[in-house]
């Protein structure tokens, strides 16, 4: 019983974290492409900002994956 709840917790951490970040990065990417299409001369600037934001958003699910694996395999 307890083991199955832990497995479920790991699945929820990884799954829900991925959903949130996927929506976030999706919006971010679409806006980046839109901005790049409107003003191609701003692409270098936009790309830097895009990667900063992507790193910030991407951190959350990655940490979720780490914690998820920890509680699935090492706990």
């Amino acid at each position, binding site marked *: 019983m307890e083991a199955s709840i832990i497995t479920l917790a790991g699945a929820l951490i990884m799954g829900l974290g991925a959903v949130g970040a996927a929506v976030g990065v999706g919006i971010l990417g679409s806006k980046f492409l839109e901005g790049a299409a409107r003003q191609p001369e701003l692409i270098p600037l936009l790309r830097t900002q895009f*990667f900063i934001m992507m*790193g910030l958003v*991407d*951190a959350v699910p990655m*940490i979720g994956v*780490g914690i998820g694996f920890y509680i699935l395999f*090492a*706990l």
Partner: protein
Amino acid sequence: MAGDYETSTEYIQHHLQNLTFGKLPEGYERYDGEVLESATWTIAHGATEAADMGFMAIHVDTMFWSIFLGGLFLWIFKKVADNVTTGVPAGTQNFVEMIVDFIDDNVKSIFHHKNPWIAPLGLTVFVWIFLQNLMDLVPVDWIPWAASMIGIPYMKVVPSTDVNATAGMALGVFILILYYSIKQKGVGGFAAELAFQPLPKWALPFNLFLELVGLIAKPVSLALRLFGNMYAGEMVFIIISLLPFYLQWTLSVPWALFHILIITLQAFIFMILTVVYLAMAYDHH
């Protein structure tokens, strides 16, 4: 290797254990049943012993690898700077000039005040953290196995997977934020910035609470973001190394390729946020 351990849990926990040096109290029962007659400074075996050493314990592997990589960075850049040529750069000089230019461009676009220390700080933070993260790409068993051959029981080679290392760096940035805030605005100006915005003066406790939380959140988020990413990456590599050795490359190669992006991105973000926070410390409201 993974086959030498009783269970996969034991293997993972062994890989997540730092080489901890600390003081165990008198009468403490060690992992092998030995009871200490007096308080001893020694290497911890297992997580319980490391936890029982308390605050004064030190992670020897984290210290060694981070200082070693910092020294490597200084040595390479010093060597290039000594042999610098004015002609068309080649080899290492080309690479170093590229990194320095890259950092310089980014710092110039964010930090608009006069301070000759910010760009070198950004360069150090970026290259040092990048090198620390790069240790993640060394196969997880190589260095711990080599260390166990010469009698070192634990070895965690990626300093940034240790929260103490990342928190230490974030604390350094935090001290610089406080120093430059007070230097630019004075103690009164800094306190006023904390207390009298965003709402007018009558909401002082609320403002103070909001701004202090914002201030403390900066180093905490810096430290935990880098730690969390690197820890998760290391964890995935360790899980992959539980597979039979002829299957490992099917997962570890794609993950390592993806991880090259992550380690660069995290080093870059740590550097950018350091510069942004220091620029915020300079800005007057």
